[in-house]
């Protein structure tokens, strides 16, 4: 579906992409990882037809620069940094929905699922929303359209755990109908969302691997974490995941989205010396076992 052939991009003599070759068929969910300056954003901008370049980029044989409207009507994009748009939320939704031939109500519904009440913010300038609210709205605009390619740059970075779980569920609904390109500078942030990892370094693809995607993106794990003694720093960290303590403050319980398990364990690892036990269980798995 997506094909990069010998894509080279230079900025004032500096070569940022050095002949990238890459194919991404439908159903592939690709993590595009690499350090800052590896060329991830440049590759995405070439894919969106925003940069001129050498070589060829095609989506189903179409050039995203020459056939912009045909190609981009099939692409949902979520940038890493929300743009400082002054227009009201309602206007932005109308603008995106009209261009993408989508139903504004559907976009508002997706935003609602993510925990953003569009009706409340309709007249609110976009740039005055919080970081998480902006991210939710941009995700809603991307997922509320009929796209078969989702391009997302650190899409869940600003979301709270509950919104992340819903976001993963929405992605799960799209997994068979769309290809996904999810950019991140940390693999653990996106590892469980994808079935393929492409790593870039200094403008080149240095790793292209398929990975197991046994994790159900819509799943949730029930977790119980025991600690040796109450600790305020730990309490603050785990409360952000929506966990609640027992009366003694030494056992915390809550739910973690399936694709977030690695990220959650990463948070716990910071308090390894404090942990007495960890229990994680997927109810659906328990039922299967029974």
């Amino acid at each position, binding site marked *: 579906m997506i094909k990069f052939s010998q894509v080279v991009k230079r900025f004032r003599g500096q070569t940022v992409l050095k002949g990238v070759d890459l194919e991404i068929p439908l159903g592939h969910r690709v993590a595009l990882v690499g350090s800052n300056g590896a060329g991830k954003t440049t590759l995405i901008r070439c894919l969106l037809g925003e940069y001129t370049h050498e070589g060829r980029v095609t989506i189903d044989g179409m050039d995203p620069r020459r056939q912009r409207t045909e190609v981009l009507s099939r692409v949902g994009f979520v940038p890493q940094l929300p743009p400082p748009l002054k227009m009201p939320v309602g206007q932005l939704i109308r*603008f995106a929905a009209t261009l993408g031939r989508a139903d504004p109500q559907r976009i508002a519904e997706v935003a609602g699922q993510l925990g953003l009440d569009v009706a409340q913010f309709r007249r609110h300038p976009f740039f005055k929303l919080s970081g998480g609210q902006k991210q939710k709205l941009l995700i809603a605009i991307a997922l509320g359209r009929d796209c078969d390619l989702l391009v997302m740059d650190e899409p869940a970075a600003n979301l709270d755990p509950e919104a992340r779980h819903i976001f993963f569920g929405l992605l799960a609904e799209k997994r068979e109908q769309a290809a996904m390109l999810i950019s991140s500078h940390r693999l653990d942030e996106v590892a469980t969302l994808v079935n393929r990892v492409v790593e870039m370094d200094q403008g080149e693809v240095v790793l292209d691997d398929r990975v197991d995607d046994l994790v159900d993106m819509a799943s949730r794990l029930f977790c119980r974490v025991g600690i040796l003694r109450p600790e305020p720093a730990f309490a603050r960290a785990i409360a952000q995941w929506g966990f609640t303590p027992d009366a003694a403050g030494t056992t915390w319980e809550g739910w973690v989205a399936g694709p977030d398990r690695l990220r959650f364990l990463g948070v716990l690892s910071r308090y390894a010396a404090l942990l007495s036990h960890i229990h994680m269980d997927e109810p659906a798995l328990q039922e299967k076992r029974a």
Partner: protein
Amino acid sequence: MKQLWLTAVTDIVESLRAKWFMVYTLVFGGIVALLFVFGLTESRIMGFTGLSRMLVTYIQLSMAILPVFVLVTTVRSVAGDREAGVFEYLLSLPIGLGAWFWGKLIGRFIVVFMPVFLAMVAGIVWGVIRGADVPWGMFLYYTGLLLSLAWCFLGIGILLSSLTRSADVAQGAAFVVWLTLLLFLDLVLLGVMIRGGLPPEGAVAIALANPMQVFRTAAMMLFDNQLVMLGPSAYVILDHFGQAGYMVYAISYPLLLGTLFAWLGYLWFRRSDLP
């Protein structure tokens, strides 16, 4: 066409909420208010009084303020939007580059022209309420001149925004362009150039090519139809164009120039990196 108007409306909505627009509106609204506060309509100059007197002063002040305001606000906001990632996001949506560029230009034109025009209309309305006669011919002609001047500098601003990658460079370039045009408004400089060997026709050609000078001369023509204030160069202008011909030239030349610059900006925009 739908995409074009959608972009224009979006740009208008964006601009109406921007600080530069508030300052811009306050400046032109403030000028008209000050002209009334200081009783300019009651004063007399070169036979002009009432609303004609106000329009003559307003147009002179507009010539000083409008070009630099249009240039700087256009390049700052357009190049600033590009730097801040607005282009990256909005141009990831399915919109044609032509519809985006020209829609933005039309939206921006409405935004920069309307405060200037509405301030003038407000002045006229206030004058009518106070029983003054409305010089409709002068009003229409000045509207045409302001429209033409705003379009011309908007075209230059859009071209500079397309050519430069950062808001600071764009703003610097806009100032250089404005200062250059301002420099050639100076009749003393043109006089020195003639004394230095430049043929008088060359000096007149420079003046006729400078949209600010064209505007200035055309504005002058309504209250000094023989252009006595211009001196000998008035003969060249009146011999070549005649009064009516020059008035047509003064409106059409900046319009064409602005369109040419905007078109060049579009060609560059279409072939270069968008964000």
